């Protein structure tokens, strides 16, 4: 299926969950937040969140700033 990750097109296997995506992309254990369709998805819900065609996924991480 086709999704967008941080505005870049990406192809994922059908039925991929957010937890699987996070593992595949080696997301760090902390300092990261994920949203699907502009709604934040808590880490505890990643395993139960199956992605679907057209999902718009945003992954943010901690960065230096004032």
């Amino acid at each position: 299926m086709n999704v967008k990750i941080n505005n870049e097109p990406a192809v994922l296997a059908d039925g991929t969950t957010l937890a699987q995506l996070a593992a595949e992309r080696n997301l760090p254990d902390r300092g990261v937040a994920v949203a699907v369709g502009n709604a934040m998805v808590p880490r505890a819900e990643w395993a139960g969140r199956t992605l679907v065609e057209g999902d718009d996924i945003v992954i943010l991480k901690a960065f230096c700033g004032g």
Partner: protein
Amino acid sequence: MEKLVIAGREFGSRLFLGTGKFSSNEVMAESIGASGTEMVTMAMKRIDLADKGDDMLAHIVRPGIQLLPNTSGTRNADEAVFAAKMAREAFGTNWLKLEIHPDPRYLLPDPVETLRATELLVKEGFVVLPYCQADPVLCKRLAEAGAATVMPLAAPIGTNMGLRTRDFLGIIIEEASVPVVIDAGIGAPSDAAAAMEMGADAVLVNTAISVAGDPVAMAKAFKKAVEAGREAYEAGLGRQSADMTADASSPLTAFLN
């Protein structure tokens, strides 16, 4: 020195530190240590999955340091609320430096969106520290909306231009019902000391330290300046004369003739 209390949490240091523009995470970490700060700001950005960069959080997270994620990059209240929820998840804290500055040239905070976002975020249970214009009326409105502090600017972000809004900061400090943190534009330890002498509760410094010739030494200098300024305020400064007429500090009795 009296302790600063924000939203029920005590702070021994009245210097808050931003983490932008340091030459390395190591220099940043050492500067944080040297500053004695207990409140450190950070931002978020879209992850670059190809970039296996250093984990900046590992250099910041210490016992006794409150993380203060910001909403930099947002242009309105809705974006700020989204960023706030992402930050709460990423950093595990409901403390938030709310900053909404849609104009990239001066990075001045949007007062209307900032007030609206404060109202929304307080309802969502955030401890909101809004970056705002040095506007006494706006600061009152933010406090009424439930902001934990107000953070009026001294000068635009990163300019090192000092207390350009000084007279209005004075009104804000006089009228404030919540702690006043002077944020943005503080360029030298003397600016920080002056703000503290005026009765500011804390200052937030970033660029002046991170781009200094020796950031660690500058962090130490700011620590001393903030402490000196606060101690002077608590000691009670002597009154300034209305004109230049001298008032002798030594006896004027003649003793040579």
